[in-house]
Each structure stands twice: as structure tokens, then as C-alpha cells.
């Protein structure tokens, strides 16, 4: 008899859309426009959406953090802009070469590849990777493409385990047949194709220790779940993978973090996107994601009071407060996406109780408890936070 399930795979809403020629066309368009400007005696420029909190807002309708439309104009003929203008073009040309040759480079490689002394001066095109990284970010915002689409990758972090078949270039593999360690998520997931998906949902897990525990307990197999370990804050690759699995494969996303401000923030980033990468929310955020735990209610319900830890910092009602964890929680209470009864209740409770609880605290019951009781119970009963 099939178990009744609260979470079930849905219909896909997006299609696999990776197309390298799109990036190349964009780059050429920009180059041509600059050339036209200079030929007709105009000061050529780039319009780059401004970064920073001042140009970010929460889109209530789509429920993601989005970038505003404030632009900064970067001119060639301006002493303060000229260098960045040159750097922008340098990276653009480099990206064109990368993409057309189908090669990938790390941010650090991109920096070294473009660093050289400008002839006749003692000046380098780039003095520091801190100069090239922001230019790449500028390009993402300016052209509306991911840096992964430009074949520029960041450090990889996170892995997945579950009964899905992935095609990565010439290789095809099932991520539950790669041993207990699963499959490490690469910096770029754009080109991946999901050949077979035999899971009902994806469980995003904050700590690797917990993910390993679940794999050992054969949770993925029993519950037809895909485990995605973020190992702390989710990397861009992982966030993009979550987004794709949700929208291209219809997988419900359930997030499992520690019951503390940092865990809730990880959830918030996966769900709504981040201020830093607000311009990528459409590709990285998954507003439909839900939260399974840890919650403050769990402490009472599963009798975990003795395995909680004290929140750090001074509570708001004490002199000098609020600081540290308390301050973070109060900030999170202000987030538009936490403006609902459930979350406000959780966060208020945390402050009132003055405790945090880790995923691993569940091991206090037994090693199997999380896989056999806690997660199946909550997920199948749909006891999830929005």
C-alpha cells in the first residue's frame, strides 16, 4: 500500500535552456555598440546595474529578492572610469574566447590570464583578483547571464545523493551509485542534463554530517528523496542546481538546517535569493522551497531540551542588547518573507527561550531517529514551514 505523501513531484515549469551562442551574441552586440559610439564621436559607455543594498528590493509577487533598475554609466573618457572600462572589455574578450572554445576557467585563472603590464607603463591591467572579480559580477548584471554561462566558475562546494541520472558532457551516471559520498556539485551546472529522476523531492541539508547520516540510514532510497548537502551557505552551483531541479524537474524542495539564525539565513537565501546576487534571483532562488527543521517546536515535541545550546550575545531586553544571535534573529524577523504567523512565532520563541538547536542534536534520541522518525513524520504529514 503506497504511503500517502504530502510532498510530490510536480510538473516542470522551465525547460533546459543552456545556449552558449546567446552569450556570444550579447558580447558582440556590446562590442559593436562601443565601436559605433567611438566612430561617431560619442563617449562610449557601459550601463551597469548598481550593486549594493540601495538597488535591491523584495518582489512580493514573485517572492524573490530582486535588483532595482538603478544604473551606473561607465564611460571610456572619464579619468575615474577609464581603467574599469578597459578592464570590462578585456574580460569580455576573454569570455568570448572561453565560450567559443568551450573551455572553463576559474575566477583566479581569469585574473591571471588577463593580468599583464600595460606597454609603456608600470601599470598592470589588473593588480589584484579583487579587481577582476567585481568586473565579472558587473558583466553578469549588465548582460543578465550567469558567470557560469560565461564559463567562469567559482570554487565548488556541496554534493548530492539520490536516484537521479545526470548527463555531464560525455558521462552519464546515477548519483546514488557513486558510493556513500555521492556526487560533488561542480561550479557550473548549466550544461548538466537530468536524464532520469526517480525521486519525489529534494532534501537540502545544511551539514555534511547530517547528509552522511541520512545516506547511511538509506533514507534517500526509502523515502525516494534526493539529498543535497550544502555544507554551510549554499554555493552558487548548488543554488542553481536546486533551482533547476525545482523548475525543470518539478521537484519539491525541502530545507533541513540547524535551528539557529545562520540555518534560517541559509534557508532564506535558497528561497528568496541574496542581496549580493539579487540580479540572479530569477536563476538562483526557489521561493517555493519549504522548511522542515529544526524548529523551536521540535524541542518540546521531541524532548530535546537538554541538547539545546544557549544563543550567543545579549538579549534585547537586557542592557547593551540585542547583540550577536539575538540581533540576527530580530533582523530576520523583519525579512518580508518571514512576515507570516509561523515564522514570527518560531523566531519569537527562539528569543524567548534563548536557545539554538543543531540538526545533530537529534542523535540524542538515537542514530536512526532522524531518518526513521523525525523526517518521514514531518515531511509526510506536511508539517513544514513556509
Amino acid at each position, binding site marked *: 500500500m503506497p504511503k500517502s505523501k504530502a510532498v510530490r513531484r510536480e510538473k516542470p515549469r522551465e525547460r533546459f535552456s543552456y545556449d552558449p551562442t546567446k552569450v556570444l551574441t550579447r558580447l558582440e552586440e556590446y562590442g559593436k555598440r562601443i565601436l559605433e559610439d*567611438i566612430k561617431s564621436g560619442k563617449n562610449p559607455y557601459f550601463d551597469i546595474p548598481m550593486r549594493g543594498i540601495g538597488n535591491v528590493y523584495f518582489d512580493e509577487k514573485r517572492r524573490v529578492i530582486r535588483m532595482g533598475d538603478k544604473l551606473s*554609466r561607465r564611460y*571610456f573618457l572619464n*579619468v575615474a572610469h577609464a581603467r574599469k572600462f578597459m578592464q570590462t572589455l578585456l574580460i569580455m574578450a576573454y569570455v*568570448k574566447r572561453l565560450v567559443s572554445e568551450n573551455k572553463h576557467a576559474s575566477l583566479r585563472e581569469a585574473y591571471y590570464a588577463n593580468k599583464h603590464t*600595460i606597454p609603456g607603463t608600470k601599470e598592470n591591467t589588473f593588480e589584484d583578483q579583487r579587481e577582476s572579480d567585481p568586473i565579472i559580477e558587473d558583466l553578469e548584471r549588465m548582460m543578465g547571464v550567469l558567470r557560469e554561462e560565461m564559463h567562469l566558475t567559482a570554487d565548488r562546494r556541496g554534493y548530492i545523493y539520490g536516484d537521479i541520472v545526470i548527463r555531464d558532457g560525455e558521462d552519464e551516471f546515477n548519483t546514488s551509485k557513486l558510493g556513500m559520498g555521492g556526487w560533488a556539485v561542480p561550479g557550473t551546472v548549466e550544461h548538466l542534463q537530468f536524464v532520469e529522476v526517480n525521486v519525489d523531492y529534494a532534501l537540502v541539508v545544511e551539514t555534511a554530517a547530517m547528509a552522511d547520516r541520512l545516506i547511511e540510514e538509506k533514507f534517500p532510497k526509502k523515502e525516494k528523496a534526493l539529498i543535497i548537502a550544502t555544507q554551510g551557505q549554499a554555493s552558487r552551483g548548488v543554488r542553481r542546481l536546486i533551482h533547476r531541479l525545482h523548475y525543470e524537474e518539478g521537484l519539491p524542495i525541502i530545507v533541513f538546517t540547524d535551528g539557529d539564525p545562520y540555518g534560517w539565513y541559509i534557508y532564506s537565501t535558497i528561497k528568496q535569493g541574496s542581496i549580493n546576487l539579487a540580479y540572479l534571483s530569477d536563476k538562483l532562488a526557489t521561493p517555493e522551497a519549504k522548511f522542515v527543521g529544526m524548529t523551536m517546536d521540535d524541542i518540546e515535541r521531541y524532548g530535546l531540551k537538554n541538547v539545546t545550546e544557549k544563543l550567543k550575545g545579549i538579549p534585547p531586553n537586557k542592557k547593551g542588547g540585542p547583540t550577536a544571535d539575538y540581533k540576527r534573529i530580530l533582523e530576520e524577523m523583519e525579512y518580508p518573507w518571514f512576515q507570516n504567523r509561523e515564522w514570527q512565532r518560531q523566531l519569537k520563541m527562539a528569543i524567548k527561550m534563548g536557545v539554538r538547536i543543531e540538526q545533530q542534536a537529534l542523535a540524542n534520541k538515537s542514530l536512526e531517529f532522524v531518518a526513521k522518525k523525525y523526517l518521514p513524520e514531518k515531511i509526510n504529514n506536511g508539517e513544514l514551514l513556509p
Partner: protein
Amino acid sequence: MAEANQLFKEFKIQSVSEFFRRNAAMLGYTGKIRSLTTVIHEAVTNSLDACEEAGILPYVRVEIEELGREHYKVIVEDNGPGIPEKYITHVFGKMLAGTKAHRNIQSRGQQGIGISGAVMFAQITSGKATRVITSTGDDSIIEAWVKIDVDRNEGKIVKKEKHPNPKGWRGTRIELEVKNVRYVRSKQGVYWYLKLTAIANPHAHIELIEPDGKLIVFPRSSEDVPEPPMEMKPHPRGVLTDDVYRMAKKTRRSSVKRFLVGEFSRISDKKIDELVEYIAALRLIKTEDDKNVQEQLYERLMKGEVKAVLRSFRGYTKVVKQVAKLMEKPPEKLSWHEAEEIVEAFRYMKFLAPPTHGLRPIGEENIEKGLTNILKPEFVTAVTRSPKVYSGGIPFQVEVGLAYGGEIPGGFDVLRYANRVPLLFDAGSCVTTLAARSVDWRRYKVDDLDRAPLVLMINVISVHVPYTGTGKQSIANVEEIQNEIRLAIMDAARRLQTYLSGKHRRLHQAKRRRTFEKYVPEIARALSVLTGEPEDEVKSYFLSYIEGHFASKESGGAEEVSENA
């Protein structure tokens, strides 16, 4: 205890020459380097003054020959008017004789000691006579060897020859042999002295042959011979009792009144009437016993209420009449006390400022020429202030020149002059140095004064420059003079500032332009990759755009916009 007679056996009357022989330092003969400079200074000054008075464009040639250790022959030759034969001994042999010493006139030289001092110095260091070759342009050239008879303060011609002058040469050449001196190319040496002289006298052509045979030429840059200075009558506010007393003894005027009107400036018949009242008032005030009342009366007198002061004394008309009689006396009968009364009254009276037609500044144009010609700067300016008065009645005038950049090496230099004569010593205590340092140069865009390629020349002109010592190398810190120098410097510095800010702007533009140009090759390569357009063509688009932008900028183009505008 010795008897007075005993003591006075050794008593001798010392001649003027004897005095200066013993006190050569007072004439500037101190130190081996300075002594040589002084010898040359005296000769060159005489040459320039003579040429000026004769309206001749000076050509002065200085030659220094090394004869041995600290032993030189100095030759100075000019194209001046020459010296008539009978005056040779006077010019070179007698101290305190000259054409200007007794006149109230701006002059380079000193009181007629100058060249005879040099002859004396040569004589006491080498024992040699000074050889003089001169002609006034007539048919003979005189060659004479001159010595000084120190005891009698008289020149003595040791040997004399007359030569024919078929080419009509005119001028004076003197040759002095001096020992105990040293030629060094330092800032106190001959080279530097002549260089400074050339700057202040752009109408002179000056040449120097150094001991090693090197010829240095400071060519002429102006063809105008400066007008010789004019004699000026002393101003009543600038005289001492002694001046009045002695002038009265010498004058040929018939009465004190005529003497005062005739030999002082700014004294008219009307002023004499006023003077009489003032003297009478002063006499009456002195009869008053109450010190407080006396003070008040002096104050009222200072305010010019002379008539009121007189009326406050009973029978004052009698005193006035007495004083009026004094004015009719023959001047040689004027007593010291009466001279004193006159000078005291002068202090209370108001006079027009002294005439300044006797002052002969170098002039802004000529300073600029001199500085440009000798220093080859990139910027030069000069300011000649109008004449002012110090100490109540001594006219003076200040001019400054500023030269910046070009061949001028880094380091601020002040070139000091008094009546066009370079001052090489005692710079520290000189009012010119104080004034130059008191200016806040940073206000004029000279940020690091001590490293700026900047030369400031200051010339103080007066019939009576207030030197601080006998060496006449430093001007006393007289407030009026310092103020004038400061104002002149600031005026010139403002012009320098205008120049420098323009220069900074141009440098800034060039730097900006370079900023854009250096990125063009990088941009061209990248754009060529992006668009497929040939790199060189892209480069030329950018370069001509920059060119156009800066061309329109010169004529006042639009400003840039900021990135986040």
C-alpha cells in the same frame, strides 16, 4: 706712574689711509675669497658708474691670472670715459675723494674709498703698484703705476709713460697684483658677483677670464644706458643737527632763510614762516614748569596747533620776532644750538614727501631682461614699486624680480642688491632675507620653497641705504623697507601663481590625456576580439576621439560626468 709727557711721546696723528690700512676689514677686506671679490667689486663699480655718467654702454672685462699660491693679478678693463691725467692720483691714491661723496645722490660706490682701498690692499699684500692705462679718447694713452703714500694720504705715481693713441681708444684698464686671496667659484666669489652684477645691469656686457683661462661672457641684453642718478637736496625730516650746522658753514647763501629754502627740498618761504612759529613755540614750551602742561603742549604742537600753542603764552609775539631775526642771520653765524632748534622744529612740522627723481631703479623691463638673459628661466616677472620714505624723510624704492624654472636649479635663491650692487655677505640679518622668508609662498603655488627652482632678486634703492655694518653687505630691518619689499614680492608672486596654475592645468590635462591613451591598445585588442574589426583601425578611432576631445577642451569644452551620475 708714567708722566703724561712720556705717554704722549708715542702720540701720532694717523692719516685716513693709515687708518684704513690698519682696518682693511671695514672696507670689505676680510677673508681670502671676499677680499678678491671686493677688489673686483670696486673696479667694476667704478667702470659701470663712469660709463653711466658718460652715457656709454659699458663693456667690462675682468681677468684673473694666478701668479702663485694665493697670489693673483687682477685686470679690469672698461670702455668708459677714461681718466684725465691729472686726476689719476686722486682717483686711485687718495681716500675719501671722488665725484659723489659729498653729494646727496644715489650711488653704487662708497664714499670714495673704493678703488683707492683696492690699490691700498694690493700695495699692502704684494707691495706692488697698481698699473693704470687710460685714455679719454684723445691722441695719447697714459700708462701709470700708482702707489699710495699712506702717511700723507696721497697718491704717488711711481712711473708714467705716454703712448700714442692712433685708433682713438678710450677707457680705463687697471692691473692690481694681490696676495693672500683665493679664487673660488663659490657664492661669495668673483664669478657669482659678476653674474649678479650682470643681472642687475642688463645694459652692461661683462666678461670674465678665470685663472684657468676659461672665458665667461655675460652678454648685454638691453641697449639703454640708464639715466645717471640726479643729485637731490636733503629733505628736512632726514637731516641731523650736524648736517644743518656743517651745511650752514659751507653755504654761499646770504641768510639762514635763503640757505634753508635753497639747500633743502620742500622748504618754501611760507614754510620758513611756519618754522619760525614752531621754533618760538618750542622755546616757550620749555619755559613752562608744569611737566603735565608741557606734555600737553608738545602734543598739541604735534597736531599742528602751533598758533594756539603760541597764543597760550603771554607776550609770545616778542619771541616770534626774535626767532624771525634768526632767519635773517648770515648762515655761517648759525650756532649749534640754533641748528638744533631748527632740526627739532622740523620733527613737528609737516612737509611734502621728499622728491624721488634722484632714484634710479633698474625698471621692470630691464630686470626681466637681466634675469632672462643670465638665468634662462621659463618664467620671469618684475615689480618696481613707487618710491617711499623711511625715517620721515629718506626716499627709497624697492624692486623685485622673480625667475622660475627653465635652467634654474632647484632651491630657492635670493639675490640681494642695494643700488644695483650685489650683496654677497651677511644674508641672514638682511631685511631682504627676512621679507622673502616672511611671505607664505604656498599661497602662491610654490609648495616646497626650498626645492623650488625659484630665484628672487631684490634691489633696494636709496640715497642712503641703511646698512647694518661697515661692510655694507646687509640692509637694516627698517619697517618701511621691509613692508615695501614684502608688497613687491607678493605682487610678483601673484603673477608667478597665475603662471604656475596655468602650467599645472596644462600638466594635468597632459596627464589625463595620457591616462586615456595608455589604455587604447588594450581596448583596441579587446574590441577587435569582440567585433572582428582590425585592431589598428579601432586604435585610430579611439586616438582621434581623444585628440578631438582635448582640442575642444583647450577652447573650453564640456566637463565629464561621474560614473554614478
